[in-house]
């Protein structure tokens, strides 16, 4: 059996290499793993204020959370909003196809940058602008819709429980479609042109090529966008928090309260760190499970190998 112990000589030889990684390891241990383990510990305790006494209560915080209809609603909101947020994939794909069809020219570069721009604008200013765009009375979107129906449209894109999820999805798609477009475009351009040429000789039209060549070749791209989109969607907080007026309670009958917003209210507004830590652990397990299922279903990692 091979001896795994380092000899003094080997250690001396590798000391430079170890000195490079020791900073990262210590940083990881202190700033990532220690807080993570502390969160697990807090989630099993009743804690009003950290450092002012902890009372071990086992899984009571978890039981409490699952007994709260507001928490269950927050889970369901998060899931629904994550799925709705996946609209960025087809929208990004559509933009990518259109931009790709222009051909490799300066114009393509212009549109590529143009559609990616929302990604590099500060989120907060975008969210504040969208609060005006989505206002029910006199908002730009409603004014625009009024032109089509010939009468005043009043839809509470951020205030009416029936429409609020669509309202924040519009903002999410606007912000993220550019990124999706860029990833789609690079995948599109990686498909060998020979296949299209061969299909043309066989008499395939544009739609046939899209369905039979483009989409199957984009599978790994869609899988990547799907998995990262779901992970980002499950961790949604800032955009909804700001767009609903810095309100962690979610606005519109609570239809916009995500899990992170629920956790936030028990961390910063009516502090109960045991409950918020339990919420964080539930979110962690939730994201982990969903990612594993996604990876399995899409075969994402298999394709990468």
């Amino acid at each position, binding site marked *: 059996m091979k001896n795994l112990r380092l000899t003094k000589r080997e250690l001396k030889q590798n000391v430079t290499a170890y000195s490079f990684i020791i900073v990262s390891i210590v940083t990881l241990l202190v700033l990532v793993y220690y807080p993570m383990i502390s969160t697990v510990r807090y989630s099993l305790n009743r804690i009003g204020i950290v450092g002012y006494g902890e009372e071990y209560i086992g899984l009571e915080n978890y039981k409490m959370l699952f*007994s*709260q209809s507001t928490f269950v609603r927050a889970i369901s909101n998060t899931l629904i909003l994550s799925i709705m947020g996946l609209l960025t994939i087809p929208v990004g794909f559509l933009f990518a196809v259109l931009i790709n069809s222009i051909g490799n020219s300066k114009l393509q570069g212009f549109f590529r940058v143009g559609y990616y721009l929302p990604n590099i604008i500060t989120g907060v200013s975008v969210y504040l602008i969208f609060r005006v765009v989505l206002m*029910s009375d006199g908002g730009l979107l409603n004014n625009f819709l009024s032109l089509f129906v010939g009468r005043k449209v009043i839809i509470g894109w*951020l205030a009416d429980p029936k429409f609020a999820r669509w309202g924040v999805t519009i903002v999410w798609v606007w912000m993220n479609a550019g990124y999706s477009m860029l990833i789609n475009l690079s995948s599109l351009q990686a498909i060998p042109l020979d296949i299209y040429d061969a299909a043309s000789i066989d008499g395939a039209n544009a739609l046939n090529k899209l369905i039979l060549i483009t989409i199957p070749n984009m599978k790994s791209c869609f899988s990547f966008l799907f998995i990262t989109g779901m992970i980002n969607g499950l961790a949604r907080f800032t955009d909804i928090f700001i767009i609903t007026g810095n309100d962690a309670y979610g606005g519109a*009958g609570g239809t916009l309260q995500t899990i992170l917003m629920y956790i936030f209210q028990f961390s*910063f507004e009516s502090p109960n760190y045991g409950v918020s830590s339990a919420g964080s652990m539930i979110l962690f397990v939730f994201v982990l499970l969903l990612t594993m299922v996604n990876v399995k279903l899409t075969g994402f990692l298999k394709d990468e190998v």
Partner: protein
Amino acid sequence: MKKLLVVLLALTMMLPAFVSAQTLDPNEKVTLNLFGTANFVDVGPDGMMDLLSGVEMPGYNELIAEWNKLHPNVEIVVKTCPWDSWITSIQTAVLGGDVDIILHGATLTELCEPLDPYLQRDPEYAAKLFATENKRFGDLSKTMVAGIQYVIEPSIAYLDNEIFEHYGVEIPDASWTWDELIEIARKCTGTDPVTGKQTYGVQLCYTDTQNIFQNYYKLAMAYNVAPITYGKTPAESTIDFSSEKMLDVFKKLQALSECCAPNVREGAYVVHDLTPENDTAIRWRTLAYDQYRKIKAAGIEDRFTFIPLPVIEEGPAKGAHSTYFGSYNMAISNNSKNKDWAWEFIKFVTTEPVAVEWTLATGGIPNCEYGMELLKEAMGDKAQAPITVLETLPEGFCNTTNENYDNVNFGTFSTSLVTVLKDLVYGTTTPEEAIAAWKNATDEYMAFLK
């Protein structure tokens, strides 16, 4: 023998007060660490200028300089934190162990030294104050003083004389009721008969923030809804949502919301200040002196009447005025090693004339009699509204942990109120549904406590 024992016991009881009074040695070198938010973070060390009114506000260094004239041996070190996540910033700083006075810390009762013994020791000082931060912590069946406000901001009503006049409605006096207010709001909602512009009867306050609950609070106070019955612990307390009074309050809120501008109902881009473009007959909010300075700077001070909100019609506070306080307070950290000097500093800030003048210059209403004299000089007749509210304030009044509202002890009770009120004001729920949703969320949390 018995008498001697009584005298001995009494002396023993007074000993701590005597000892603590003796601990303030004017030659002792002390550093008092202040941490938190309040107006210290707003004005900063060197002061600032209000962009709307053009009024310059002094920084906290001026206040400290005045303190050092009296107590050169006590150095004051101020560290402020921004309003974003101020609660966690304060908690972290206090845990660090180097905080003596928490600026605006009375909400964080677990960190606060109870100040009742200090006030009992100093009745002359206590008599000068209009209010103290009476909170329920530890044994919830009674209140304890967790901090002292040095700025006190009662909500009052601001009436637009022009809109009243155009609709031929008389300006009410301070004895008005909520029903009368609703009636006026209905009359003043519509197309202004003189200008032809759309006007609104009322603006519910802070519909764009969590402070929307203040609207409920004022009405609940007026009709003594009192759904909370306190026990010693949150688990032993009960909350009753079934009263007709509560339903009536929610119906009144619904009626008021129907007289609000659409953006106010939606809580989007709400203008809180009084401006020349004002289109609303009745508004209410805190910051009366600040509002006065702004309308004075805009030259429209004659257009508005300031009056107290309607009277409380039921309960032990009957005859006083519905209100809600904004405040800036100071609390003593319970792990401070300089509690007596910290108390001395709080007394200085709240009642020493130069400090009171500093408070008023920053735009806040000082929490003492001298402050009211200054306010009268500064605001003239318009000072009467906040002064009336303060003078008729119910004994032991506390905004945040009382029978009508508690944002400390019952978890989702306060947070779900915000959600249902926003829906009620926007019009996507009925009073009955709003109360049911509020009850449901609260019951679930209370079940966890038990």
